[in-house]
């Protein structure tokens, strides 16, 4: 047999294409030539090695196809689906927020309008009586009449306990005017607790207006109910009107 014939025989053996006759021939040749065994082993390694290499190339192609036909489709759908879902959720949330703002806004606006309609700064009677008053008080009321509520507040606020309910009330009005709401409420409460027959009603009235302005409607209404229940109280009629409007 020549080289080419042996080569073909080996390849046919490696590829399982030998006939039984050819198989016998190969067995015979193996006995005669020990090198042939190594040749066959190496040929098999080459054949399978080439197969393995090209299978890897095919696998790389299949990976590309997988990414294009399977992976790239699914995530897009998922991403778009999720995006639409989130846009929907955010839109609803925004709508709800705007609606709430609108409702609160209109309610707050209403309360502010009522406050503006009914609020008139307290007019102290102390200077009208022409009495001699201490310098700091005089200065306090000077500032108050000039509507310099901050300056007036600064003079008295820390030592308001030492003064009359009228001065405390006037100080509370200063606090209200400069948006020191907590301080104002505290001073109003101080007066209310004294149960002063005159100034307690004023304190309730201004406290109710302040609470209305900061949208604490229910608490404002409670105070107005007290004022409107007794016709002898100051601000009785205004309290009644305002209550009806609320």
């Amino acid at each position, binding site marked *: 047999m020549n*080289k*080419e014939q042996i*080569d073909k025989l080996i*390849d046919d053996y490696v*590829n399982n294409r030998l006939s039984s006759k050819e198989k016998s021939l190969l067995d015979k040749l*193996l006995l005669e030539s020990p090198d042939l*065994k*190594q040749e*066959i*082993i*190496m*040929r*098999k*390694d*080459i*054949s*399978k*090695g*080439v*197969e*393995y*290499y*090209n*299978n*890897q190339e*095919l*696998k790389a*192609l*299949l*990976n590309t*196809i*997988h990414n294009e*036909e*399977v992976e790239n489709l699914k995530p897009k759908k998922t991403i778009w689906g999720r995006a639409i879902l989130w846009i929907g959720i955010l839109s609803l949330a925004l709508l709800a927020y705007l609606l709430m703002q609108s409702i609160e806004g209109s309610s707050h606006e209403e309360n502010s309008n009522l406050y503006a309609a009914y609020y008139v700064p307290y007019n102290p009677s102390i200077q009208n009586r022409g009495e001699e008053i201490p310098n700091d008080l005089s200065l306090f009321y000077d500032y108050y009449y000039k509507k310099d509520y901050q300056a007036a507040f600064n003079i008295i606020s820390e030592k308001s306990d030492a003064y009359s309910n009228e001065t405390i009330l006037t100080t509370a009005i200063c606090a209200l005017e400069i948006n020191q709401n907590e301080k104002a409420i505290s001073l109003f409460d101080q007066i209310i607790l004294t149960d002063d027959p005159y100034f307690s009603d004023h304190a309730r009235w201004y406290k109710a207006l302040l609470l209305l302005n900061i949208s604490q409607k229910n608490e404002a209404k409670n105070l107005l109910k007290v004022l409107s229940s007794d016709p002898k109280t100051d601000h009785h009629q205004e309290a009644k009107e305002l209550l009806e409007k609320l």
Partner: protein
Amino acid sequence: MSETEILQNLKNGDNTTQERTLRVIYKHHYAKTESMVLSNSGTKEDAKDLFQDVVIAFYNKTKNPQFTLTCKFSTFIFAMARNQWLKVLRSRKVPILEIENTFKQIPSMENIQLNLEYSENQKMLASLLKESGEKCMDLLKLFYYEKFSMKKIALLRGYSSEQIVRTQKLRCIKKLKSILMQNEQYRTNLSLREI
């Protein structure tokens, strides 16, 4: 694309035709394999690897002149996937009694195996293949992988005769053998190995 076309395209088609055919196989048959794997202790990565191995094994089978499809292509592919997945699960020691029960509706076709196992020597040869040069890689691919005849290779690559192809192939084999023999471990073990 008919099943006959799939078989013919993979067996004899050019690169473009083969790729087109592989895409068709993917589009129409991947989902079922993925579903089977995911329902039986597998992950998407497992499904991808399994399906690709099945396609590669099927591709290799089409190169055998004696190979014919005796059932539907989809059945054949799925049977291969099922058999291979059972093999994988056994190797992972996952209880498979219930899995086997769920496969009762599928024809077992247990003799359909992937045959994608390669020795370390063969994998090493694959890594050394590039050293033989582009021409040899192409020629050896056409002969050992595509299983084309000398006549067909001569026609495809413009060789003037089968003899020239044969001679060229022998030169490539000789070149690869010398590359292999440079590896001491391979050389040492060669004498100890049996056919």
